[in-house]
């Protein structure tokens, strides 16, 4: 493993600096991204090569010290993913300086609902405001967002009621394209420099071993706990390596996307 903990096979992971604008998309990625407020390390791998069903974006509004991150997993593939990705980009761009993430999910839901079930999508949107030192979390049926407070060794899932919750039965809202009238919730929690968040698609927790046993939230948090103090790229790599070890293959079971973030 290199100093930057790049993934084997992709040693040329580059650092990107996002001062303003939006970075991301649907292509495979193994990259570190810095904004004024956040450092992030991104890994995304599609199971069928190149362009899968996962979408990730990181956007920054320099003037208002807001960084937003979005991860989505579309049930369909091909055009459905491209469409949702495009709508997500447009919505992120339209609200780039507004910390309220519910608007983005609501807008996406309206559009996706017209596309049918092929556009059914789970999504998580996180906005960090460097003005108020808060994060705004909204989810649409997406796996729980994990939080690690600076100096602590344990990660825990954050429910939409703001409490740390057991992995089972957290409230994560409804996926997009299920019900046009859905009102998405948002949780606002105070956050300080050094605190970390981990957002991922279900290709992480639903990675099976040869017995069909899923990687699961417990294994994920165990790996994160064991690497809580590691640099972000190493934390990301530790999870990816654990996934590869668990599955015994090259992550061909599903699209896998994960983003580790730290407040700067």
């Amino acid at each position: 493993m290199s100093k930057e903990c790049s993934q084997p096979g992709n040693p040329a992971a580059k650092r990107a600096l996002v001062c303003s604008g939006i970075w991301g998309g649907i292509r495979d990625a193994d990259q570190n991204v810095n904004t004024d407020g956040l450092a992030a390390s991104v890994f995304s791998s599609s199971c069928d090569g190149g362009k899968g069903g996962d979408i990730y974006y990181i956007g920054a509004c320099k003037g208002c010290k807001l960084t937003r991150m979005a991860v989505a997993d579309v049930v369909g593939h091909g055009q459905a993913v491209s469409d949702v990705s495009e709508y997500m980009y447009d919505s992120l761009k339209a609200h780039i300086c507004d910390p309220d993430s519910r608007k983005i999910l609501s807008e996406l839901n309206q559009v996706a609902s017209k596309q049918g079930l092929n556009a059914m999508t789970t999504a998580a949107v996180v906005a960090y405001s460097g003005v108020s030192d808060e994060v705004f979390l909204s989810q649409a049926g997406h796996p729980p967002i994990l939080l690690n407070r600076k100096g602590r060794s344990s990660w825990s899932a954050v429910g939409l009621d703001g409490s740390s919750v057991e992995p089972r039965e957290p409230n994560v809202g409804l996926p997009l394209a299920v019900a046009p009238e859905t009102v998405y919730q948002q949780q606002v929690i105070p956050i300080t420099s050094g605190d970390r968040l981990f957002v991922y698609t279900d290709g992480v927790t639903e990675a099976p071993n040869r017995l069909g046993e899923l990687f699961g939230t417990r294994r994920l948090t165990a790996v994160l706990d064991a690497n809580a103090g590691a640099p972000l790229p190493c934390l990301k790599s530790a999870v990816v390596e654990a996934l590869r070890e668990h599955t015994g293959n090259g992550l061909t079971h599903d699209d896998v996307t994960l983003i580790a973030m730290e407040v700067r």
Partner: protein
Amino acid sequence: MADTNQTERLWDEMHDWLLAYIRNHVDNTDDAEDIYQDVFTRVHRNLDTLKDDQSITAWMFRIARNAITDYHRGRATAARAMIRLAEGAPENGEDIDESDPAAEPEADFTHCLKAILKQLPPQYRQALELTELGGVTQTDAAEQLGLSVSGMKARVQRGRSMLKDALLDCCNVEFDRRGGVVDYQRRAGRDCGRSGCG
């Protein structure tokens, strides 16, 4: 008591997207249908526990997610039991490590599974023995047996389904939250092979 009309209305409203969601998380279409039925049963059984301020759609979605998790855990447990079987796990509880509270029921469960496996039609038993016990990939197994890969996958899936049905027909199996076998009992009047469970 749950309102049957209310449940049926929910069923109609949620059928398409809930089934699509489950299918997206389960390889086997038949299993997805089974999980969907299971979700409906759980919803109907627990409708009275729904809190007034809770979104019923979101609540049903959570039940579906849990049912999917339970499905994968159950499959992994069966696979673990089959591997123990393949590695010569003790029969009739012999040589069980008594310090492991989970060992005895799981070893007996393996014994039960072995008896049931013998009762499957030869082509399905062979498919499971090759892939689940022998560790042969389905692609390689297809080549060995002169089948198409899709044909082999269908045979393995069908074999798994038959094994599961036969097992549940033979025994009441109780799993813990991690999918481990906590307890099982032979159903009254069932002949689960020469030395079946219970």
